[in-house]
């Protein structure tokens, strides 16, 4: 009896913080948000349950265009991050040995010791009209007048990829690290080229890392607020900016809550689709890391 009691106690103690976190910070706010999103103000201080907020989203092209644009650009940023991070991770995990390996890994980590805000301002110092790159190009005589490199979609993507790199490199390095070198050698020994070894051996092995990295990067990018607003300016049309506007500028919490739910729904749907297309399950990608 004693033994099972103490076992139960330790289980309860272990679970309490988790249950509190889940309940107070995830479930209750979401329930409240949902309730907020399905009420409509018909007169001051009188509300009625309806899906009018959702209807407004679909009725106003600006809103759903913004969401579609945000989702597509997030997918693009995720794919670009993967293409840049994969060779980096492969180089760290499979080619470097010993000290240089940990140094390079640390170098990937280093920028993240600085806050995202500061890093984004770093980009602005480089890219603005009176910034370093513009001045340098003028000094070199390549352009005649100052050039504005901020406030366009390419800059936003660059900023997002930069912000996301670490979250892709870490899971990729850990899965690639676990790939036995002799499998790669066997791939070559049996006549494989660099391309076919990568496609048939390295990528299938790294699939769980690729998917978990992509999920994290996609979620972070889709929900990012700072980078698109600062680098893209007013015209960035990022969906989180739209939510901010509803809550803070227009004080329309009901519509803002509905937007929040739509964002959650779209991101979940895209992740689900990605898992289906790659033939992975959420459990297998998370459990392996």
């Amino acid at each position, binding site marked *: 009896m004693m033994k099972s009691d103490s076992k139960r106690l330790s289980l309860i103690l272990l679970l309490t913080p988790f249950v509190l976190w889940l309940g107070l910070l995830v479930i209750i706010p979401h329930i409240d948000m949902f309730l907020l999103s399905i009420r409509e103000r018909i007169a001051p201080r009188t509300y009625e349950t309806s899906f009018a907020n959702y209807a407004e989203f679909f009725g106003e092209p600006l809103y759903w265009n913004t969401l579609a644009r945000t989702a597509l650009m997030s997918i693009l940023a995720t794919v670009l991050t993967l293409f840049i991070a994969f060779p980096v991770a492969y180089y760290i995990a499979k080619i470097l040995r010993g000290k240089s390996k940990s140094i390079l890994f640390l170098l990937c980590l280093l920028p993240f010791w600085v806050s995202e805000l500061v890093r984004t301002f770093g980009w602005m110092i480089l890219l603005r009209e009176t910034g370093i790159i513009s001045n340098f190009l003028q000094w070199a005589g390549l352009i005649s007048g100052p050039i504005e490199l901020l406030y366009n979609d390419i800059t936003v993507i660059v900023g997002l990829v930069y912000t996301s790199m670490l979250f892709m490199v870490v899971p990729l390095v850990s899965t690639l690290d676990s790939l*036995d070198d*002799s*499998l790669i*050698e*066997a*791939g*070559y*020994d*049996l*006549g*494989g*080229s660099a391309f*076919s070894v990568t496609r*048939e*051996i390295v990528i*299938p*092995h790294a699939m769980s890392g690729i998917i978990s990295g992509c999920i994290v990067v996609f979620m972070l990018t889709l929900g990012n607020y700072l980078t698109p607003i600062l680098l893209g300016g007013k015209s960035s049309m990022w969906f989180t900016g739209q939510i901010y506007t509803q809550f803070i500028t227009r004080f329309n919490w009901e519509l803002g809550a509905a937007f929040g739910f739509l964002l959650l729904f779209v991101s979940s749907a895209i992740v689900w689709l990605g898992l289906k297309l790659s033939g992975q399950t959420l459990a297998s990608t998370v459990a392996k890391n």
Partner: protein
Amino acid sequence: MNYDLECKNLVKSFDQFKAVDHVSFAIPKGSFFSILGPSGCGKTTLLRMIAGFYEPNQGDILIKGKSVLNTPPNKRPVNLVFQHLALFPMMTVAENIAYGLRRRKIGKAEIKQTVTDALQRIGLPDAGPKQIDQLSGGQKQRIAIARCMVLKPDVLLLDEPLGALDLKLREHMKVELKQLQSQFDTTFVYITHDQSEALVMSDQVAVMNQGKFEQVGTPQELYYAPNSAFVAGFVGESNRWQGKAVSADNQSITMETISGLHIHAGIPLESDISTISRFSVGQDVVTYVRPESISLKRITPDISGNNSPTQTGENILQAKVKDLLFDGAKSRALMTTSSGETITVSLPQTGEFSNLKNGDELMLSWRADAVKIFHDSAL
């Protein structure tokens, strides 16, 4: 004579360390060639050079008479069975075997046929759709070999593939590997640190030590006529004594150990006259005697032993049983001489000595030509 694989003066150094030091050998077609050596002797480096994963600093590698030095590993007509087999866990058994064939742009139907044939040949006709982790150690072994053999390599390299198996399976796989080799009729180059694997399976064995080949020969030659102290000590079990040469004549050399034991070593007939002059009185020498070449006799009152060459070329010695090491047909006894030397002897399986006890006195004798004598280098 045409050789499947020839290595000429291969050298490979890592920084200051010479892993492979001027190694030359040639392997005739269809033979089973083993490279035997302790870990760190450079055998894996040698194998990886042949496979193409390392580039030699010097020398040449020829396969069927053609240099492959500038051929990358994926284009060489050799395949390697890795130490841990390196089967692809992301593919089924059939996909593993088909991997190399797919790289050669062979038609799907033909690949399927070849894979089926290969599975039939290794006795696993139904294993095709299985996952790698569903296989036992011995089955994985066979799949790894089949995966290479479907590509019909000129030479198959094997890097201690039996190392990870348990003893029983290892014994079984030794026989099976030998059979697979004759079945596929391909040249096998097998590296191992296990002398029994090398002796059982090979046509030719090269004993490697510190980057050099000490001796290349048939298993019998290595066992009965080792030409260096290292080979005598490494291949098979031996009693080893160090000492000084105290006398030498036409037929034998007598050595005295520090504890005063005298060993008479014969000079093999076939060796040239310089052998005798090689040893002179006062030199440091080392001798090896196999436990099974020592014959045992129970003490009877009329003979008493103090190693004096009563019959020509015979060592006779009295010793006491210190320990009995029972191991079925390989049972041995540890004997101590009056001077305190320990000698390992094999117990004959005739039952004559089955009632031997610790402390029993026995007469040991062995022929002088069963003693291998070498200069004592700093071993």
